[in-house]
């Protein structure tokens, strides 16, 4: 039994790997984006008030239509960061958002993000979207799909205004952008 417990997951994982390989080693876009969001949780420091208790969960929210399917839930399932569990919440309007640390804004809503960002009132929430021009229009991180690869654009002024500290690991790989006109 112990042997089986060890071996079966390995077989399952190999299976997953081969499925990727069968597709020319391509991963699904939103599966990779889900893992990026999970990585952001590790590379961003939130101000203390964002976590009232030591076991306050770290909440990743999706605003608007959810493009992840179950990829985001799968990614954070059973994960803990320094004792905090991770949770996924879904919202349809910015007014509904309660506890939230990372907010993914669907492409269609993110294309005109000013209203949503104003609704967040510079709460310490990392805003992420794949909409065109998101970071230039006041959002924090934009996924840019470029030649089938995902790049990151980061608006440093926006993260600073929300009192978020971005790890140098993330700063090193992201393209730093500023608001339009500067």
């Amino acid at each position: 039994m112990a042997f089986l417990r060890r071996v079966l997951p390995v077989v399952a994982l190999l299976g997953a790997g081969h499925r990727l390989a069968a597709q020319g080693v391509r991963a699904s876009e939103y599966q990779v984006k889900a893992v990026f969001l999970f990585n952001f949780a590790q590379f961003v420091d939130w101000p203390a008030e964002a976590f009232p208790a030591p076991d306050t969960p770290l909440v990743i929210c999706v605003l608007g239509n959810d493009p992840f399917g179950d990829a985001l839930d799968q990614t954070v399932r059973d994960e803990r960061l320094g004792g905090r569990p991770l949770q996924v919440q879904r919202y349809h309007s910015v007014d509904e958002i309660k506890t939230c640390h990372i907010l993914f804004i669907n492409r269609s809503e993110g294309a005109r993000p000013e209203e949503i960002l104003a609704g967040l009132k510079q709460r310490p929430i990392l805003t992420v979207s794949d909409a065109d021009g998101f970071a230039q229009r006041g959002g924090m991180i934009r996924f840019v799909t470029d030649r089938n690869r995902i790049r990151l654009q980061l608006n440093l002024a926006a993260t600073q205004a929300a009192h978020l500290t971005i790890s140098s690991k993330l700063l090193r790989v992201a393209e730093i952008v500023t608001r339009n006109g500067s």
Partner: protein
Amino acid sequence: MAGVPAKAPRLLTLGLVFALVGTPGFAQQPDTAAQALKRMSIEQLMTLEVTSVSKRPERLGQTASAIQVITQDDIRGSGASSLPEALRLASNLQVAQLDSRQWAISARGFNSTSANKLLVLIDGRTVYTPLFSGVFWDVQEVPLADIDRIEVISGPGATLWGANAVNGVINVITKDAKDTPGLLLSGGGGTELPGFGTARYGGALGARARYRIYGSRFARDPSVLPSGQDAPDDWHLGQGGFRLDWDASTVSRVTLQGDLYDGRIDQLSPGDIAVSGGNVVAKWGRTISETSDLTAQLYYDRTHRNIPGTFGEDLDMYDVELQHQARLGARHDLVWGLGYRLMNDNVANTTALAFLPAHVARQWFTGFVQDEIALVPNRLHVALGTKVEHNNYTGFEIQPSGRVNWTVSPSATLWAAVSRAVRTPSRIDREFFVPGQPPYFLAGGPGFHSEEELAYELGYRHQHGSFALSAATFYSRYHGLRSLEQVNPPAATPIVIGNGQDGESYGAELSAAYWLTPRWRVRAGYTELRVHIWPNPGSTDTSRGLTESQTPDHQLFVHSSVDLPAHVRLDAGLRAVGKIARRQVPSYEELNARLSWQPTARLDLSIIGQNLLNPRHVEFGAPGPTRREIQRGVYGLLEWRF
């Protein structure tokens, strides 16, 4: 986050990730690829190739075939100003420009302006004409900014894709309307492109439906004659269209799209060539269950072409298709479909040539089934299938294929395929007469039957981190290729069209892509190809396959794309194409380059140079004083998004 130890990202390639999954401690969760992805560093995630959302894994018909994918970004970087120019990005295609508007495009040889062994689809709509089974490339002007990707498959794809997919399939897929929101204005001009512009607007209809509409117009300068004079082939075309994508429910989706165009082309003979047409396509898809999917498609396509002094044509096509896919048990993935097409073709004959009868209605019935069997799940898959087709000319045709895909390691895949494909007769094979009235020099092809192909393919695909390599080799035998047979030998005329030639082709297609750094990508493609054609015993054909073997032996492409600081990007594409010996087309090398600057997310300015190495060069056609030459060109492009 304060006090949270970051998981140390490991510098592993994806391949190593899978090699390492056996280590104790990692084998905790019987989960999916998500676990493997989580082990990757951000840098690695950024070099990983992703597929856009597709609910189902790719079919074996694609993975076990010589497929190359041209992405929207590849098209942008290439500075292509038309669909045929964009197709130069697929190194498994032979693409040659004849003049300002005519192109010869084929895969695995047999190239000509009426190349007839390639299936070309735009969003599921067949765009080859049943007049000669080829494509009028001058009226396939899809707005390039709307293209999501172009899948180019060399080799037979008849089982899944359908008639005419003898030597390849070009599948142009445009973006979903939700991916084109807002207003886009683009325009520009240059030496060979006097002026062009496109306006596109995308919006929402309620919460579940998105649409876009567009209008575009362009003009093209003439090509030149060997004497250096302008050839009379300058032209202009206007086009407009729409696309609506509606998520009708959580399990069903609807797409409705259409285009209208109208253009004028100068020609040597008196009078302009007039082209116009339109199409409307409706698609409906429904997810029946986790393992079962149904799609239906309906389209109407009308084309009008009037070439004063040569011929005129009005063609109406009606097409309906139904496809069902179901997973059966753990090992079988079944896909089957039915189709019906009606063509109503009306030719205005002239004294120069005639299609007789002038007006015909033809019908095609098709059915196909393919089973993808997991012999060893995720390692060894086999796909067996066949297409059965009925047409008015030759009755039933059967096109079976077998494919096998072996995942040797997480980074390496071997595939092999054996396929039979046929090119069924088109109007030109049976009903074409020259001149337009008796006595005829060419008197149709009353006995012409389908051309047959048996193809053997073997391929290898390798991807390791930021490096990807693909190699496909092939050997094909052809029976009953089109020939010109003397009716009363040894009298040279009259002649009729027959099936008097056999042939073979073989070669290799290589392509590779490598990210030198996260911002610099290099791609290369090389194709080596041989075609031999010979007359059958009893044939009186004397052409020795002249019109079927206008293909260079080899071609090489290298593209470099680099993101520079300050939102500047530089792309360059070099192509070296071998000579076409039988037409005395010399080998040539050409360079395209594009420099673009994106000062804000809304504005993109670029300057594009095409065919920069020579003032002018020849790519195709019979030698002589009227063979057209393609000139060096430079143009500027401005794109503005709101």
